[in-house]
């Protein structure tokens, strides 16, 4: 019994000790200034640090907050890991009833929830994506990203740069922007070389990093000289490329150069700031919704972030720039 008690105490201390590491810094509460700050809340399906979809939105909101002058001008709140849809619906409703000015449902699975909640709060602006459907509601903005466009550019680069003449694609599940990005990528490769072999794998999961790593290694063993892929689990593919040492990486959703500084050629970055600024301005002007935003290269919502640490031969860069210009002015169609 004594042993048990000592063990109990030990376990308790270990628990507390482990959490003692977790002394994060919290931003100070918004100062109660004279002007009422704008209040934005966002509900996201994964973590704000996923290096992909959720992180891209959270970073954009923080940039906007800085621009506007910090927490006293823009109050931000978030709910992350809301992969259970009824929970997300409750969060959206709760934020709206707390009087938030703009409520963002950042996940394509939140459509039905927005459709139910938004009519009950006609004064609140709702934005959701990725989809193009605002259900005909006057206070809902829909948004999506034309992921195939950056996919096309990445495809052109990959086809020109792969040293083995072979390319691998590591995807999660063939849906949503994971599908459209890869469709664009394949089309981009084909625009350079119609007969270049591309292998595709789908792991069936958005989060299985180990299987994604194995998939990437399989591509490499099969002779792929360039890899790309989508979802938060592609960090596994990037790790595999890095381990191989000579396989190039093409990123999407967020700038992934930091994970493989020598091998990442370019990343397609979702930049939501323009759209957010627009929604904020529209709201000020009294327009609460009704539009659908599509991030494209032309409107600046999609950016191709070339990795400064990787030197691209001038002729290749020129062809990539030509592809970007072509997509911008519509002479190139990213999807076949």
């Amino acid at each position, binding site marked *: 019994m004594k042993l048990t008690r000592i063990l109990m105490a030990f376990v308790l201390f*270990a628990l507390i000790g482990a959490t003692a590491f*977790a002394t994060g810094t919290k931003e100070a509460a918004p100062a109660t200034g004279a002007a009422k700050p704008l209040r934005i809340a966002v509900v996201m399906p994964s973590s704000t*640090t*996923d290096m992909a979809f959720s992180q891209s939105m959270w970073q954009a909101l923080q940039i906007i907050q800085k621009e506007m002058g910090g927490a006293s001008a823009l109050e931000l709140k978030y709910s992350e890991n809301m992969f259970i849809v009824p929970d997300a619906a409750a969060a959206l409703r709760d934020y709206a009833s707390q009087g938030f000015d703009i409520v963002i449902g950042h996940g394509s699975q939140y459509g039905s929830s927005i459709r139910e909640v938004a009519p009950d709060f006609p004064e609140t602006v709702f934005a959701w994506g990725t989809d193009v459907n605002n259900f005909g509601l006057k206070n809902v903005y829909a948004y999506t990203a034309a992921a195939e466009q950056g996919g096309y550019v990445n495809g052109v680069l990959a086809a020109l740069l792969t040293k083995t003449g072979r390319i691998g694609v590591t995807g999660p599940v063939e849906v949503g922007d994971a599908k459209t990005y890869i469709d664009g990528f394949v089309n981009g490769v084909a625009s350079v070389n119609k007969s270049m072999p591309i292998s595709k794998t789908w792991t*069936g999961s958005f*989060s299985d990093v*180990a299987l994604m790593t194995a*998939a990437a290694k*399989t591509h490499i063993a*099969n002779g792929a000289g360039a890899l790309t892929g989508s979802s938060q689990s592609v960090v596994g593919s990037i790790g595999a490329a890095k381990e191989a040492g000579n396989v190039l990486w093409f990123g999407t959703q967020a700038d992934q150069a930091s994970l493989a500084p020598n091998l990442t050629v370019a990343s397609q970055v979702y930049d939501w700031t323009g759209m957010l600024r627009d929604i904020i301005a529209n709201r000020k002007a009294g327009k609460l919704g009704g539009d659908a935003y599509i991030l494209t290269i032309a409107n600046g919502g999609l950016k191709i972030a070339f990795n400064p640490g990787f030197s691209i031969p001038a002729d290749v860069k020129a062809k990539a720039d030509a592809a970007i210009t072509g997509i911008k002015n519509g002479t190139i169609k990213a999807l076949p």
Partner: protein
Amino acid sequence: MMNVFSFDVLSGVLRTMIALSTPFLYAALGETFSQLSGVVNLGVDGIMLLAGFFAFYAVFLTGNVWLGLLAAMIVGLIMGLIMSLVSVTLKAQQGISGIGLQMFGLGMSSLLFKVLVGTVKTVSGFAPVKIPLLGDIPFLGPILFNNNVLVYGGFLLVPISWWILEKTTLGLKIKAVGQNPAAADSVGINVNRIRYFSVCLGAVLAGVAGASLSISIANLFQDNLTAGQGFIAVALVYFGGWSPVGVLGGALLFSLANSAQLWLQVLGINVPASLAVMLPYLLTIVVLTVAVNRGKQPAALNKQFFRGEN
């Protein structure tokens, strides 16, 4: 279609199989000890996550992979103590306490990751070590003898576990406690102490399994890095019929199927990806169904032991 059965493909399939099977080996062999002593630990996944995080974090801070491994083992031990405290001393329903442990590990690892690291970063984990001479054998050399230390360790653990369980008094005691705790108690075996030992040993090995994910396979940490592998490991114990060799067979079969389905996709064979991904799960059930010898479940598995009442 020609190249499906080529030498390179076969060697590639086997190499991926070896890499994928390592975490399963550690976790499932550990769970075998735990279950043989009568305790089902459904929290393996949570242990792998928390230990995997600390392994990553130690390497992230110090760059020393051995410190990472040590951190994982210590975290595994602590989680094992929690599990034994709740399930052995406090006689909790093992199924429920394991799920609690899993939720705790999942939450805690993501929380610490977010607060301490912030976003995905890579580290350099265990590097492959080529074994002299053996590593030069054509075909088999690169597959079997050019891996990292954790991989070798996982495979060495199979005969070691077998030896402990079949040839030592400790092994006998573990099995006795799992078969008939009251009888074991009556001949002077301290049932709770043996169960504490087995659960903690299992948890330490689950910790190493977590480390093999975060500092050997993926070389990074990410929320829910295991993606449910801990549960598969528990299933593999049933597949292996509580014998280390059986567990090895299960881990290799599951990983072989997974590796093969990836190769099927890479080679462009026209199967819908979701059906290919199903393959390892399906095969595991089918093989176990048609296999003759299924091992004997420890009689006192998942049963609390109340001294002097049974």
